[in-house]
Structure formats: C-alpha cells, structure tokens
C-alpha cells in the first residue's frame, strides 16, 4: 500500500544536480580506498583512512544559494546533507519534522519552487538556486494562510507533529487541482500519516479551502 501511494502523491520532483563537483570527492575517496575497505581493513589502516576522510570532508563543502521563505541564504554544505537536515540542524527551521527519514510518512513535506517535496529524500545540493517554502514561511507575517486557518477551524490536528507536513501537502493538493472531492483529497493526502487519526477533519479543512476559492 505504502509504496504506490508514496510514489503517486508525495513524489519528490525529479531534479538535476546542477553539475556540482562531486566527482573530485569520489576520486579522492577512491584513492584512499576508504569506502570499499572500511569494513574489511585492519584497524591501523582504518584509522589512517578515517583521517583522510576527515581531511577530505574539510574540503568538500559545496556552495549553494537557496531562497528559503523569502530570505536568500548563501551556504556551504556537505553533499550528503539532506534538505531536511539542512533546514532543521543548520538553519534551525525546526517546523519541518522528521518522522521516518525515508520518505514514508510525509512529515517533512516542504515546497520547492511551489511543488511538494519530501525534504528527507532530497539532498540540499540539489536545490541550488531554488525557492523553498517551509511551514514557517506559509503565513504572510501575522496573517495565517487559509489552510492554516482551516486546520484550526476543523480541528485538523492533535499532537501537531505531522501537521506541518499535512498543511504543506494540503496546500499543494489544492494547487495541483487534486482536491475536487473527498475521495480525491483522501487519495492525494495518503502520503502523509497522521497517527492521531485526524483524517476526517483534515479532509474537511481542505474541502473548505478548495470550495472557498481563495488563492492558495
């Protein structure tokens, strides 16, 4: 069940890796044999390899520029860092949640250039030059987004942990034109798990925003 739904709905947009210099790192690591030999090499060699890795890492920060919630960020990130970890750990934008880290729960859903993306399955370096919106950037200052208002009105949340992902998905669901009926909303929101089971109220919130005709 999960496989189809995740693939169908919360599918991260296919994106190019803008040709960033990962090759250098790979070549370097190959030279030190660290990747292949890690588990098989005697401890003394491993120590040397891990030192190489440390030195390599120091030189392996990739420069990117992101527009996050309207603010331009010039950043240097390791290629292995996910967009989710960049947001939460480095930029302290902790509104986006980590529920599984494997793209199976939807709690980390953000918008990249207006499209919903699972931040845990997306490397930060893939987003260079792009516009990211997180839950913190959805409201216009003090004025809540209509979907946020609707979630309060319809009691579309309980513990609040999956809620940022639900709301970001819900906004995208309406924008994508996939909110035309209760059944369609349920299908296109099925990539976001809510263990508190607020599904009926989430569906009602989305229906109201869709039928309200406001710009989302």
């Amino acid at each position, binding site marked *: 069940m*999960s496989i189809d739904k995740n693939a169908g709905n919360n599918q991260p947009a296919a994106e190019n890796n803008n040709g960033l210099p990962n090759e250098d790192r790979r070549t370097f690591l190959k030279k030190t044999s660290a990747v292949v030999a890690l588990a098989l090499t005697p401890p003394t060699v491993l120590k040397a390899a891990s030192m190489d890795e440390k030195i390599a890492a120091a030189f392996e920060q990739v420069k990117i520029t992101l527009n996050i919630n309207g603010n331009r960020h010039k950043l240097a990130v390791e290629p292995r860092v996910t967009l989710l970890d960049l947001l939460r750990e480095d930029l302290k934008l*902790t509104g986006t949640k980590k529920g*599984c*880290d494997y793209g199976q729960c939807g709690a980390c859903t953000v918008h990249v250039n207006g499209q919903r993306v699972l931040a845990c399955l997306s490397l930060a370096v893939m987003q260079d030059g792009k516009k990211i919106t997180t839950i913190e950037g959805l409201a216009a200052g003090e004025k809540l987004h209509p979907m946020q208002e609707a979630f309060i009105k319809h009691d579309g949340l309980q513990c609040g942990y999956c*809620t940022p992902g639900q709301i970001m998905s819900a906004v995208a669901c309406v924008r994508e034109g996939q909110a035309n009926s209760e059944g369609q909303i349920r299908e296109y929101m099925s990539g976001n798990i809510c263990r508190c*089971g607020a599904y009926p109220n989430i569906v009602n919130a989305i229906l109201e925003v869709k039928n309200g005709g406001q710009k989302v």
Partner: protein
Amino acid sequence: MSTTNGMIGKSVKRVEDKRFITGKGRYTDDIVLPLQTYACFVRSPYAHAKIVGVDLEVAKAMPGVVAIYTGADVAAINGVPCGWQVNFKNGDTMKEPKHALLVEDKARYVGDAVAVVIAETREQAKDAAQMVLVDYEELPVTVDAAKAVKPGAPLVHDLAPNNICFDWELGNPKEEVDQALADAAHLTTLEFVNQRVVPNAIEPRSYNAAYDAVSEKYTLYTSTQNPHVIRLLMCAFVLGIPEHKVRVVGPDVGGGFGSKIFHYPEEALLTWATKNINRPIKWTAERTESFLTDAHGRDHVTKAEMGFDTTGKILGLRVKTYANLGAYLSTFGPCVPTYLHGTLLQGLYTTPKINVDVTGVFTNTTPVDAYRGAGRPEATYLLERLMDLAAHEMEMDPAELRLRNFIPPFDGVEQPGFQTQVALQYDSGNYEGVLTKGLEMLGYKEFRQKQQEAAQNGKLLGVGFSTYIEACGIAPSAVVGSLGARAGLFEVGQVRVQPTGKVSVFTGSHAHGQGHETTFAQVVASKLGIPMEDIDIVHGDTDSVAFGMGTYGSRSLAVGGSAIIRSLEKIIEKGKKIAAHRLEANADDMEFEHGQFTVKGTDKSVSFGDVALTAYVPHIYPKDLEPGLDFSSFYDPANFTYPFGCHIAVVEVEKDTGKVALQRFIAVDDVGNIINPMIVEGQIHGGVAQGVGQALFEGAEYDSNGQLTNATYMDYCMPRADDFPLFETATQVTPCPHNPLGVKGAGEAGTIGSTPAVVNAVIDALWSGGHQVKDIRMPLTSERVWRAMQTPVNT
C-alpha cells in the same frame, strides 16, 4: 459546581493549535543545548545472543567521538524498574529479571542496546557506532507466547523457568465456571490471536540530558507522557540521584498512545552519562529503531468459551490467555493483560460466572506494554467476537442477543453501581441506550434487507457490532495498590491567581495531542467566570508543577481536571472571605457567580479581579487570613470511570479477492459529561482509526529468528487518509457520579470499541455468503479473507 456558566460544553477552538500550524511547536528533538553532543546506540541484530566481546578500539579513534559506554560500564547501575507487581496463583511474586541500561551478558531481542557512542555530531556518532565490533554467539530463539511455555523452548531468562513471568487468575472459582459451561445449552468457543501492534507515534522517542556542575543539577528533556513519573523512577530506582536535583521536562510531545508512558533505559543512560562527560547528550530514535524499541501493544493468544441457555442468556465465561511480555518487563507490562484485561471481562453483560486465567510469558521480542486502550481492547475484542459468533451459531440476531444480556440502566446515585464478577464496580451506565441509538443511525432493518439482496446478487455485505465498556480515570490509589501497583495514581492541580486576576494553572497531566490547554482552560474559565485568555495551563515540567502522575488511561480530565476543580473550590472559598471583609458581610452570606462575589439577596458585590488584588495587597483584609490566592490539591478518585458505547461497522467483501472495503463506521459513545465536543469527537476519530488499523492493516510480524520483518512504514501498513469513510459519531451522556465534573474520559474509547466491530462485520459478510467462518486472524488482509472463504469451518 456551576456548569451552566460559560464555556463548558462548547466546541472552543484549541488554543495550542497556533504554534503547531505555524511550525512553532517545540518538541524534544527541536531543542539544541550549548555544547550539545549526540548519542547513537549499538543494538543487537540478533534476537538472542551471548555477547562474547566488544571491541571499541576502532570506534574510539573515529572523528568526533567523545565517549563510548558498554554494559560493563553500567553493570553496577540498577536496571529500569517495573511499576506493577503481579503474583502467581500460589502467591509467589512474578519473575522480575534485570532490565539493564546496556546489556553485558546476553542480548534478548533485536534492538537490545549493547553500547552507546557519544560524539560531536549525529553523523559522527552513527559512523562510530558502526565501527563498534561486537562478537555475538547466537542462541536459540522463542517468539510466540503459547509456544514459549512448552518444555524445551529456549529460555529468555534463567530465573524464569518455562519463560513464565506469572500465572494469574481472577473471577469465580474455576469449578463453578466449568459447571456453568457444562450446563449450557450452547457453547461458543473461539481460539484467536490478538496480534502485536506497534504504537508508532510520528514523533520518535527523543531525549536530551544535561548536567550543570555548578548547581549539581540534571535536566532531562524527554518525549514522555508523565515527566514526574520518569523523574521518580529514574532517580529513586535506577540512578540513585537526588530527585530535587533533577528537572524532567516533557515539552511538546508528538503523540504517545501509551508508548511514551514508560521509563526507557535510554533516558536513564543519557542522564547518567551527561555528568561523566559534562556536556548535554541528545538521542532521537530513527524510525526503524522506534519499531524495534518502543514498547509494543497487545499480543495475546487466547481460548475463550461462553455458555448460553436456550434463550440466549449468558451462563458463564472461561478464558485462558497467554500474554507475550517481550524480553523484559516494561514499566506497566504485567498489569496490562491482567488488571486491565481480566477485570473487563464482565463487559456490558450480566454473566453470572467468569473465570480468567492469564500466563505472562517472556520471549525474544520487544517488550510489550500499554498501547491505546491497554488490555481493554483485548477484553472487548474477546467478548464482542464471542457475542457475534454466538449469534451466528444460535441463529439469533446479534443486537437482540446483546439486549437480552445487558446490565439494566443504573445511574450510580439512585441505583447502586454494578458489582462485576471480576473485581470492578461499574459507576453508571445505560447500555441499551447506545445500542438502540446505533441501530437507528445504521437503519438496521433496511440494512439486513439490503444485505440479503446483495447476497442474492453475489455480493458480500456485512455488519459488525461491538458494545464495549472500559475502566478509565485511572485510578483510585488504594485499589490499584491492593492490585499490585507500585505507585499512587492521584493527580495534582494547582491554581495560582496572580495579583492582576490572571490565572496560572499547574497540572500533573500531560498533553500530547489531547488539547488540555483548551479543555482545562474552559473548566477554569467557567468556574471563575473569567475569559480563557486570562488563563495559562502549565504542564510537563517538574520544576514548575508540584507533582503529577501524567496522562494515560483516559485519566486527565476525570482525575487531573478534578484536582483543578478542588483547587478552584479553595480559591472561591478564600475569595468569599476576602470579599465579605471588603463588603462588611459574613463569608457564609457570599455567593460567587460570573466572576462576581455578591452578598446574597443584595446588589453589593466585588469582582474576582478586585479580590485577587486584595489578596496580594492585603490592606483591608481579614485578620486571621494569610495573603495570596494560590492553592494546590491532590485528587485521588473514589473509583474508576466506566465509559461505554456501541460501535457498528459495515463492510463489503470482494468475493474474488477477499478485499475488505469499510463502507460505514458508526460510533455512539457515552463518555459522561463533555467539556469540549469537538475535542471529544477528534479523540473518537483517532481511536477508531487506530482500532480499524489493527483490524485491517497493522501487525508486527516476527520471523522464527526473532527478526521484526516489517519495521518500516513501507512494510508495516499504517492507516492512511484513504482507508476510511467519514465516521458517523454520536454521544449519549450518563454522568460519572463520583467526580466533580461528571466526566468519564474519551481518549481510548475509539480504539477499544472499533476493532471487533470491523472483524465481526467481515465475518458477517462471509456468513451471508454461506461461509461459516469462526475467525480470521487480524489484520484481515485480502489474502487471509480470501483463504477463509475457500475453507469454510465446520462448526
């Protein structure tokens, strides 16, 4: 109290929502402390293995490593304790093996922690943990409770022969029940498994422990349902550190469902280690780690027999259950299959003879403990499956069969409570009421007609009933103490009126989705006649809240809310004295309503705000009265509360594939008085989603090697938005006679009632097509349902 005033009974929008919908919730993993370090646990990949050696040399040299600890380092520290003692039938105490913070000799389930690596970053901790070389010697494994007790089964703990932790019974003497069943005109027998499920809060367990060498004080941020309980267990029973030097904070918590009640080894280990390295340590479980190490729920293997006379009256019930406790005793593990399960087997029925026999069993699996409902869903599943099956077997209507056996209505005031055969005394109930209402909502007659027509057209429609009762508002301390609880189960509520008339309420209950900040504020606003904006509900911090037992067992409003009411009463009583003095009247002549203290029968009054100010600026003030307006109360309930209800499921089963479509779900719940109907409805929705989840989708699948084979969301089928129809909900109100709010609790009702309704509906659909099936093992996957249709059971 005056419940006419103001906010009670209104669907007030939740005050906590704004921070959650804007991403401002503050959960444990969101907290980063100065000089933060990160922990990663090395966990056994084997379900049962001797630890021959642990080589740390490589790992210690990895970048960023601060410290590594193994079982040898913590061998002198106590394990995490069990909070409930269940005795053997012969009076012996249960077998209670040490549940060490890190195992030294043997790993006993996949996920058992062998070592912990602490490093500068999360990634470095994880990298180094992979380089901890553990030499395991695999041992034979046992996973199934009913098989683990057989001679020759591998032993999980040397101190528990045949893997038996306890054997326990409750109810009437077995011979009396045997006789009742022997005399029965009809005997319905059901052997079934109530499968193991994984709680799966979307926020994984997370802890952040810090030590301040100057004040010698520890702080533990933890995703818990009960910070004070964690502090008490950890300080007094595990680490032996002074309780007053430990602050435990449960900030925003992303769902618990029981799994965050318990004191886990990681909490104590981090708190111990933070002093050693003098830096804060954070650990957050990864999802698969949560699957492997959060305490699981259910996992009973049961044989149940119910005897009836020729009119369908129940004569007796005999139950034998093997309850899987996992590899160690979790905090409340032994209590769940016994005192939360056996005690509920009266159900809503007048059954005169009941005997329940439970064997608690150790296996090489994750520990099992309370999961939403905890014992009561297992009891309800047992009874309600028996009722619908008996109706089929006796060719009676399942609704009629229930009506013939219901305990007649009683309010607990005029009519006394109902004394069950299994220790409890129900407080108040009107069981016919909820079933009758449910049948109306369903359109029962029309449904049966439709079902017949469908069957003629080769379609399988089914309806399933579940009329449940639960024991909530946990619990009277003296009662649970006599039943083996090693703690009191009161609650604390402090009301501090500030000089300006604003009110801070400190509660020992803990909200992790239940909306206490709204419901409790409604109660206070109504009682004091002040706006909700003037009230702040403080919870989850042992430094600000005097004490507390936390949130589980649908107890927060019934017990925690009552404690707040007691303090409000004290505030009003003192306020009357202050106001009377101001108005030169007698305190006995004062009344308080709508925020005004008034001399009875006059228009002389003074406002709540004025009284508050006077209490702190006591210039014109009674001589013998202390200044200030701040009261704390400990409320210990007189009895459990007993919510009940009727859940009805309608399904269609696809003949060729066995696929089940849940078409309708009707829930009529009686949770006593209701403060916020919107929040109650949300709780019912959520409970039903989890209960239906167990019936149709969920189940922890261990293979014979003790590997949990579906420990990801790809493999473990979580209920999602498109798995449900809109729920049709209604309430009936039978107030609780023994607490000041008349409330019973709503947190678990949905989970308790829904599971058997769904399974009964599928079985009913199959019977409508001529397949006389007694049981299908949950979850009811298409394959299982299809197979059941291929092999009708001979009855």
